[in-house]
């Protein structure tokens, strides 16, 4: 009989230090480095040059206006979709909701490209149907309004999701009680549902604003050709024209973005905190109101909006990708798959981009899985405070705009690594590090919530059966959280594959990603190649989303981002 004593919780001694080390490396270190550089350059007066630069103030103003108007567009579209699809007897809800969510998962630069292909004098689609404006007339989207509109479309799903979550959680018996006490459907909507759903609405708006502030793809494609800069594109431009004050400038600029984002996130947190009343009463399937005569009209309107914001732009994208040469009219005879052959088979730049993006995304998705399974376990087994701290540290790099993290990584890795003496700057490894840091939260959330939902006695029974930590992880815990782990892998892969903002700053020759390749092709005028690549990316997104839909029933609530 063994007489030794060991500590009781039987988690390996390295587990907790390991989790803390990972969090330190991926979250505290890069952001801390950014903060230190930013503060130091402020103290040394490095900000003076920047602050007296009118370009900065213009960019700040552009960021605020595009983000604000974009938010209004998101609120308008997302709010109407959420109200109509959640509360009323619309037919085809699933497909409407699924299609409406697509813009959120499609990379912003692809959204921008498809709209550019839809409007303006050189639109293949408009020319094919003979409606293109005369050559030489301006592209209407290369403007503040155009940027705001597209930001609004891109992030409308955020408002939709937040409001829908609020509506679905409404106490159903409260609504029924109001109906019984004689209130008409309209009064119930006005007096009960909308006031209760307001926090979700406000939170969605705040999220959309934060997302707009950090968006890079849309203002890069629509703004840079017209010399309209926002803060993220200004960072990109400063970085491209590298000079002695670049590090100081970009650290201050990304600090500014971080501040704007944190302000938005705080507002979101504030409004959501008031939602505790939701627990009162049975919530469940929200009462569905009859639209009666208005139903057909509403359905037509919803489909029209989808046609405008999704189907037409995508059709334009496909048209551009099939166009024989830039500007030649497209019809069934002139259509060619040349562009696809080019990007898939001939151009080494795009082939490298495919390899890089898929390799990086797979490595990130599976590498993070190893980390987040352990981290999720620790989160589920520790006290509330510690779990909140781990969650927050993992969330911050993801919540902050990608451009901020990219700058942080540049500052962190500009010098060679201290012990090894080699520099990963300009290699694929800096991208991998940035992806790990950026998408840690994406991977952790589903896994941690799956661990939290597990009955702890399932693990305790395994302990009494004699299984040590590794054994019960392998035999009991991991199989039980497998669906969530699958979702985490698909989500990280999906987001990483479409990523542009981080890689736009961190790539160099040979390490370009798909997002960078699309942007560069467009920048160099190969619009049809950029479109073909975009169509392929959209196809990939749709396939991944379908995969997640298939898994959805076996996942904890809230894992699939477009389901609530």
């Amino acid at each position: 009989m063994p007489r030794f004593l060991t500590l009781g919780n039987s988690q390996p001694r390295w587990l907790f230090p390991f989790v803390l080390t990972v969090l330190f490396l991926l979250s505290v270190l890069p952001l801390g480095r950014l903060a230190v550089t930013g503060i130091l350059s402020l103290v040394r007066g490095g900000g003076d040059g920047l602050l007296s630069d009118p370009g900065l103030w213009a960019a700040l103003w552009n960021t605020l206006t595009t983000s604000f108007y974009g938010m209004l567009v998101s609120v308008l579209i997302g709010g109407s979709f959420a109200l109509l699809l959640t509360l009323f007897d619309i037919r085809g809800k699933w497909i409407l909701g699924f299609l409406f969510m697509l813009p959120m998962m499609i990379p912003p630069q692809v959204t921008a490209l498809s709209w550019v292909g839809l409007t303006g004098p050189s639109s293949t689609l408009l020319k094919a149907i003979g409606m293109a404006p005369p050559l030489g007339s301006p592209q209407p989207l290369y403007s503040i309004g155009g940027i705001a509109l597209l930001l609004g479309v891109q992030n409308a799903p955020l408002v939709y999701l937040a409001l829908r979550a609020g509506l679905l959680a409404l106490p159903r018996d409260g609504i029924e009680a109001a109906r019984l006490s004689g209130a008409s459907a309209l009064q119930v909507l006005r007096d009960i549902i909308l006031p209760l759903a307001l926090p979700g609405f406000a939170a969605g708006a705040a999220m959309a604003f934060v997302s707009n502030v950090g968006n890079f793809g849309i203002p890069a494609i629509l703004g840079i050709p017209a010399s309209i800069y926002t803060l993220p594109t200004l960072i990109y431009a400063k970085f491209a024209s590298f000079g002695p004050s670049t590090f100081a400038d970009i650290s201050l600029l990304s600090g500014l973005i971080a501040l704007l984002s944190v302000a938005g996130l705080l507002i979101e947190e504030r409004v959501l905190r008031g939602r505790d009343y939701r627990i009162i009463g049975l919530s469940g399937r929200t009462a569905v109101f009859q639209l009666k005569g208005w139903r057909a009209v509403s359905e037509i309107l919803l489909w029209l909006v989808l046609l405008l914001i999704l189907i037409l732009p995508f059709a334009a994208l496909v048209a551009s990708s099939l166009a024989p040469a830039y500007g030649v009219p497209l019809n069934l005879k002139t259509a060619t798959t040349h562009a696809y052959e080019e990007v898939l088979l001939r151009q080494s730049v795009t082939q490298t981009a495919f390899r890089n993006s898929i390799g990086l995304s797979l490595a990130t998705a599976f590498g993070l899985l190893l980390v987040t399974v352990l981290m999720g376990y620790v989160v589920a087994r520790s006290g509330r405070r510690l779990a909140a701290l781990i969650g927050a540290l993992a969330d911050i790099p993801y919540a902050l705009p990608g451009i901020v993290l990219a700058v942080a990584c540049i500052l962190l890795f500009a010098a060679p690594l201290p012990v090894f003496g080699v520099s990963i700057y300009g290699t694929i490894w800096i991208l991998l590090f940035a992806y790990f840091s950026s998408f840690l939260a994406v991977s952790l959330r589903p896994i941690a919530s799956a661990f939290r939902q597990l009955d702890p006695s399932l693990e305790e029974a395994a302990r009494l059966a004699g299984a040590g930590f590794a054994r019960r992880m392998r035999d009991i815990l991991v199989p039980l959280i497998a669906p969530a782990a699958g979702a985490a892998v698909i989500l990280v892969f999906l987001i990483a594959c479409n990523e542009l903002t981080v890689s736009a700053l961190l790539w160099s020759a040979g390490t370009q990603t798909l997002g960078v390749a699309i942007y560069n092709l467009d920048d160099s005028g190969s619009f049809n190649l950029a479109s073909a690549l975009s169509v392929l990316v959209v196809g990939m997104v749709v396939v991944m989303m379908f995969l997640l839909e298939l898994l959805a029933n076996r996942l904890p609530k809230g894992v699939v981002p477009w389901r609530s």
Partner: protein
Amino acid sequence: MAQLILNHLSKDFGTGKPAVTGVSLKIREGGFLALLGPSGCGKTTVLRMIAGFEQPSDGEIFLGEWRLADVNAMVPPEKRNMAMVFQSYALWPHMSVADNVGYPLKVRGLSRDARDRKIREALEAVRLDAYADRRPADLSGGQRQRVALARCLVTDPDVVLLDEPLANLDRHLRQEMEETFREFHARSGATMIYVTHDQAEAMALATDVAVMAEGKLLQVAPPQEIYARPEGRIVGGLIGQGAILKLPWPVSGDRALEWPALQPSFVPKPGAHLADVLVRPQDVVFSDEGLDVVVEAAVFEGERHALRLRLADDQTLRAFSRRTVAVGDRIRVVIRSAWRL
């Protein structure tokens, strides 16, 4: 194997009030101890300390000579050779019934053949051999419970812990499962600790009953003993549905008194010392020379009527009656015997 010893065991979760204080207990090898107490009194916490899921904040646990836990260190559950039936059964949903039962053997590295034989034996013992390939989700509550028991059976554990295993079952299944537990105890020869808040269950199953309240151990004794001689008001209230009266009691007298000796206690004596006295309903019988009481409530239970009676000084008694009495009736009863707590 050896006896399980809890020595001054305490647990404080830092919530201001300790969950368990100073529990000392010896459970003889092969004994069947029922840990009885109201909900929230710390039974589960004691059980989890024995299993090794919680570390005591004071005291020690021994299995014979083997020190399982003290304040500084403890043997982890995976090394204790104990087994537990959880209130939620804790079956692994992704494994078949046979795999659930065989998992402890797999961890111990038994060969496939030896494992299959033991799994079959264990499933036969709980009469589930026909269900070996099912998933736990396809079983009823009682069947899941029996799978959990079979999982305990396979490894010949030194100690088997059961945390309110019948709380989620309906009344009919409970009786059947009690029988299964008794068989299980006889067959395995393991020391068993059975947590429950139901005194009838505890009495029916255990060789010893330990009563807890508010984190403290109040009394340990065999069922007949604890039924006949409960110590103190709380134990008296938990065991045997009696009424507790406050009566003047002869200071030096016996703790058990019968009617003639008891009768003077019902004459009001201002200033006399009052003792807690347990009167069980079956000891209250109708008799014309007895106390004058009013029927306060009468509930027909099928085989008899359960009555609540009010004494002249407003204390209440419980009694059974075979004939119908109406609420508000005045009747006369004698108390055949009573026990000073």
